[in-house]
C-alpha cells in the first residue's frame, strides 16, 4: 500500500520570512547562496541553499522575487544566523534593507481535490500554469509546486488577510492539517527540512540541482567544486515506506550498516521516513530494519 497525498487540506507553514529590499538586494543574497538567482524573472520562486565554508548545508530557503524586492522563506531554527549573514554581509555602499516578516507574511500549503476547486475559491487558474511562477490575486500570491509524487500550491498571504483566506478554505470544505499530517505529506512529496539536511552535503540530500556550478564563489563553493570533479557520493537521502513504525535516529542494518532516520511518520497504517543510507552507488529496492521490510526511493529534487 502506498501513502496518499492529503485532499482538501491546508497547512500554515512555520517558516522564517525575511524581506530584502533595495537595488542591491539580489546581489547581497546571491553572494551567500549556492543557487544562481541573478537571472530570476519578477514573480518567480527558486529553491536555494546556504552552506558553510565546508560546503555543508546551514539553511534551506525559497527565494521569491516580488516587484524588485525579495522574500526569503527559510528555516525558523536557523533564521537568526541567516539574517545575521545578510545584515553583516552588506557592503557599506550597498542599498539593501533586511526586514523580519515573520508576523507580516504567512505561507499556507494547500492540497486541493482538483484545481477547479482552487479556481472556484480564489479565481486563479493554476491547472495549466507552470510551477514556481507567482500569480497575484487580490493581495495574495499563489505558486504551484510539482513533485514526483503530486502537485500542491502555496499561498503567500499577509497577516491582515490570513483569517479571510482560512475562512474561504473552510467554506469550501478544507480542513487544517496538523503537524503529523504535514510531516506525512512532506515526506511523500520529498520536501526536506533542516532536520534532514543540517550539516549534510547538498549531493547527499538530493539537492545537487540547487548548486549552480557556473555562478562563481559562494561559501562552500570550493568544496562543492572539488566533490563534483573528484568526489563519490557515499550516503544518499532516501524515502523508505513500509507497514511498521520507524523511530528517529540511528539504526543498524545487515545490508547497509548504520542508517540515520531524519524524519518519520506513521499514518493510517503506513510508515514513511527519510533515511540517510550508505548506498555507495547501488540502487536497492528495499531495506530491512528491525525485522520489517521497507521500500526505498532515492531522493532527487524536489
Amino acid at each position: 500500500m502506498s501513502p496518499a497525498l492529503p485532499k482538501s487540506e491546508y497547512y500554515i507553514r512555520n517558516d522564517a520570512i525575511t524581506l530584502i529590499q533595495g537595488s542591491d538586494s539580489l546581489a547581497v543574497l546571491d553572494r551567500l547562496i549556492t543557487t544562481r538567482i541573478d537571472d530570476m524573472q519578477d514573480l518567480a520562486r527558486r529553491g536555494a541553499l546556504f552552506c558553510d565554508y565546508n560546503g555543508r548545508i546551514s539553511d534551506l530557503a525559497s527565494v521569491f522575487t516580488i516587484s524588485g524586492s525579495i522574500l526569503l522563506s527559510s528555516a525558523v531554527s536557523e533564521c537568526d544566523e541567516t539574517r545575521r549573514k545578510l545584515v553583516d554581509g552588506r557592503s557599506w555602499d550597498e542599498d539593501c534593507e533586511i526586514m523580519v516578516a515573520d508576523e507580516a507574511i504567512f505561507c499556507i500549503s494547500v492540497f486541493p481535490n482538483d484545481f477547479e476547486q482552487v479556481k472556484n475559491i480564489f479565481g486563479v487558474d493554476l491547472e495549466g500554469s507552470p510551477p514556481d511562477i507567482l500569480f497575484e490575486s487580490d493581495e495574495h500570491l499563489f505558486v504551484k509546486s510539482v513533485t514526483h509524487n503530486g502537485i500542491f500550491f502555496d499561498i503567500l498571504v499577509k497577516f491582515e488577510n490570513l483569517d479571510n483566506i482560512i475562512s474561504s478554505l473552510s467554506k469550501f470544505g478544507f480542513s487544517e492539517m496538523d503537524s503529523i499530517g504535514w510531516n506525512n505529506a512532506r515526506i511523500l512529496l520529498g520536501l526536506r527540512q533542516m532536520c534532514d539536511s543540517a550539516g549534510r552535503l547538498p549531493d547527499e540530500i538530493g539537492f545537487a540541482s540547487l548548486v549552480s556550478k557556473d555562478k562563481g564563489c559562494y561559501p562552500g563553493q570550493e568544496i562543492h567544486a572539488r566533490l563534483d570533479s573528484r568526489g563519490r557520493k557515499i550516503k544518499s537521502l532516501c524515502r523508505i515506506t513500509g507497514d511498521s513504525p520507524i523511530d528517529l535516529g540511528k539504526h543498524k542494518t545487515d545490508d547497509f550498516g548504520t542508517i540515520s532516520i531524519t524524519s518519520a511518520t506513521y499514518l493510517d497504517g503506513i510508515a514513511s521516513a527519510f533515511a540517510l543510507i550508505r548506498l555507495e552507488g547501488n540502487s536497492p529496492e528495499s531495506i530491512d530494519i528491525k525485522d520489517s521490510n521497507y521500500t526505498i526511493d532515492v531522493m532527487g529534487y524536489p
Partner: protein
Amino acid sequence: MGLLGGDGFSLPVVTETEVVDVQLNFTENAISALKENMAGDEQSHVLVISAQSGGCSGYLYDMKIIEDPGNDGFQRIDIGGIEVLIHNKDSSMLSGINIDFKETLMGGGFQIENPNADRACGCGQSFG
C-alpha cells in the same frame, strides 16, 4: 497595497559589530602601486577597503578608489599621503591587515594577508 504593503515588519535583532581602531600595513610595493592607481587624484579621492559577504570562505575583500564619501562612519588612515578609509562596521575584520602588491601575470595585484582570518580561499580574495 499588495502582499508587501501590510503591517508587522520589523528590523532583525543583530548583535552590534565591535568597532576597533584600525591599523593597516602597506608594503613599499603596495604604496607605489596605490600612488600609480591614484594618478594624481590624492586630494579628491580615497581608497576604501571593505568586506562583504561571499567568496568560498564567507567574506570577500573589496578595494575601491572613489571620491571622498565624506561619511562619518569611516576611519581614515594616511598611507604615504593617500587617505585609506575603512568603515567602522568592517574595522574588527580588517584591522591589522598587511597589504602587498605583486606584479605577476597570473594572480597579481594587491594581496591582503589578514591576521583576523581563520581561513582563506586559494585565490586570496575570500576569508572567514
